[in-house]
């Protein structure tokens, strides 16, 4: 207690203070006994009191460290996972019905025509035979592929288009359609539909991808084995039916009506056989020749992804920073949602406190 404060009123009201302190106010024995009977409360374990200052000094750094540690772990794990994904091939399972392949990431660098190796491909390398889903030998399959390749300029576009046609012919295929546009000021485009024997399609894809930088690649394989078998069974059944009808027609003693009916039936069956045979030939043709929609373009990439770090450390740092950014966004969103509630709670608390103080003043002023 500051001495000056006490001295002030004790000096000013010296006699009054002395009289006040001399007033009888001893606690009655009954009350004293009642208090003594309470004894000593049982000792409980005292936990450290969580004050605001302690919370700020301890909890906030602890939370920050935890978030940074989580980001580091996330970065390491995700960079490992992305590396595994990158090194896995996108080779499709052949002979199991429809097969689809993953599109390659944009701006995959293609290797020269003669530089194809049999190494396990990564995204930094050109398409290799192992990176392309190959058809199953001995099975009838409908093989369709889309390949989009970027070339340097309009001059190169013409050269590469010619090379693509040359590759097609070398592999025993043909160009089903070709359209090329090269307007000044606009990106040049060349769209080719190539029909290449299925047995050579992998070579074709590899060689075509070597004409530039692969932008996208899609492969679709549909198994036709069952279709061919069904068509062949149908042909055999129709041939058998024709033989029976022919034998029936050769029997003597047939009435004119019956003979006419059998003749009509024979004609129908022969037509059906011709159709079934035609369909079978079409299916076999389809299975023999793959269809490659090959596009060449001079269009520059719009926004090359900067975050494609090549090193493990770079990927880890990028992923960790991404995680921290996400955590920060979540924290800001939570703050935006919670802050009105906090303000409301503080206002309610202040209101209740003011009310209780005013009520206490009223009670003590009038009671």
């Amino acid at each position: 207690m500051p001495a000056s404060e006490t001295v002030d009123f004790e000096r000013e009201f010296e006699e009054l203070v002395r009289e006040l302190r001399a007033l009888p106010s001893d606690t009655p024995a009954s009350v004293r006994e009642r208090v003594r009977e309470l004894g000593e409360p049982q000792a409980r374990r005292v936990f450290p009191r969580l004050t605001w200052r302690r919370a700020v000094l301890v909890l906030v750094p602890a939370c920050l460290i935890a978030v940074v540690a989580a980001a580091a772990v996330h970065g390491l794990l995700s960079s490992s996972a992305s590396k595994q994904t990158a090194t896995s091939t996108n080779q499709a399972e052949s002979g199991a019905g429809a097969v689809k392949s993953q599109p390659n990431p944009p701006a995959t660098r293609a290797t020269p025509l003669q530089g194809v190796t049999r190494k396990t491909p990564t995204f930094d390398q050109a398409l290799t035979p192992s990176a392309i889903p190959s058809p199953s030998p001995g099975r009838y399959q409908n093989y369709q592929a889309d390949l989009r390749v970027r070339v340097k300029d309009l001059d190169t576009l013409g050269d590469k288009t010619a090379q693509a046609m040359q590759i097609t012919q070398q592999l025993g295929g043909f160009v089903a359609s070709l359209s090329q546009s090269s307007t000044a000021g606009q990106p040049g485009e060349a769209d080719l539909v190539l029909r290449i024997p299925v047995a050579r399609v992998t070579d074709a894809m590899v060689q075509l991808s070597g004409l530039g930088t692969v932008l996208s690649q899609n492969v679709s394989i549909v198994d036709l084995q069952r279709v061919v078998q069904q068509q062949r069974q149908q042909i055999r059944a129709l041939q058998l039916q024709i033989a029976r009808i022919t034998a029936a027609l050769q029997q003597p003693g047939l009435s004119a009506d019956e003979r006419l009916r059998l003749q009509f039936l024979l004609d129908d069956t022969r037509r059906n056989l011709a159709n079934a045979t035609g369909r079978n030939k079409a299916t076999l043709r389809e299975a023999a020749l793959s269809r490659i929609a090959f596009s060449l373009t001079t269009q520059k990439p719009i926004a090359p992804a900067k975050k494609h770090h090549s090193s493990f450390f770079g990927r880890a740092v990028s992923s960790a920073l991404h995680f921290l950014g996400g955590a920060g966004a979540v924290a800001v969103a939570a703050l935006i949602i919670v802050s009105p509630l906090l303000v409301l709670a503080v206002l309610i608390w202040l209101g209740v406190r003011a009310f209780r103080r005013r009520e206490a003043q009223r009670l003590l002023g009038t009671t």
Partner: protein
Amino acid sequence: MKDVNAVPTTLPRLGLARPSFAAVAESELDAVHRYLLFLTGNRSLAEDLTGDTFEKAFRAWRRFDPRRGTARAWLCGIARRVALDHFRAEERRARREDRYARELDRVVEPAWGEGSLASALQQLAPAEREVVALRVLLELDGPTAARLLGISRTACSTRLSRALKRLEEMMSDARV
């Protein structure tokens, strides 16, 4: 009186001596009773509320932190809340019951006996008697008393000064 159970305990980690409840109760009982006597102006009521205060303090003892203030100030805070709760309950009861009947039943035992000071004290408002009790009798310092009353230090000082002046005037009037 010394209590054999009054073994001081030590606050963990900080090494601050924490008194036992029994020792605090023994040493602060008179102060709390005197405070409640001034606050209520009623001797029997002050005795009841003193007992209630220490029962509450007994239950809340583990929350007492010597680093944040003296045991006397802590107990006075509890005593104040107990008294205010009582006043609120009394007010509700008065509203419910018939006013005339309540006045008939009300027998107030004089808190300080006879004399000019006693009658002057009875005329003071409880809030004024309260600040006199805290500052003069219990000798709490200004900031502690102000915090306990929920007012500023200036308001506390003004209230004390006004109460003492009023007391002096009333006593001098009575003597004349």
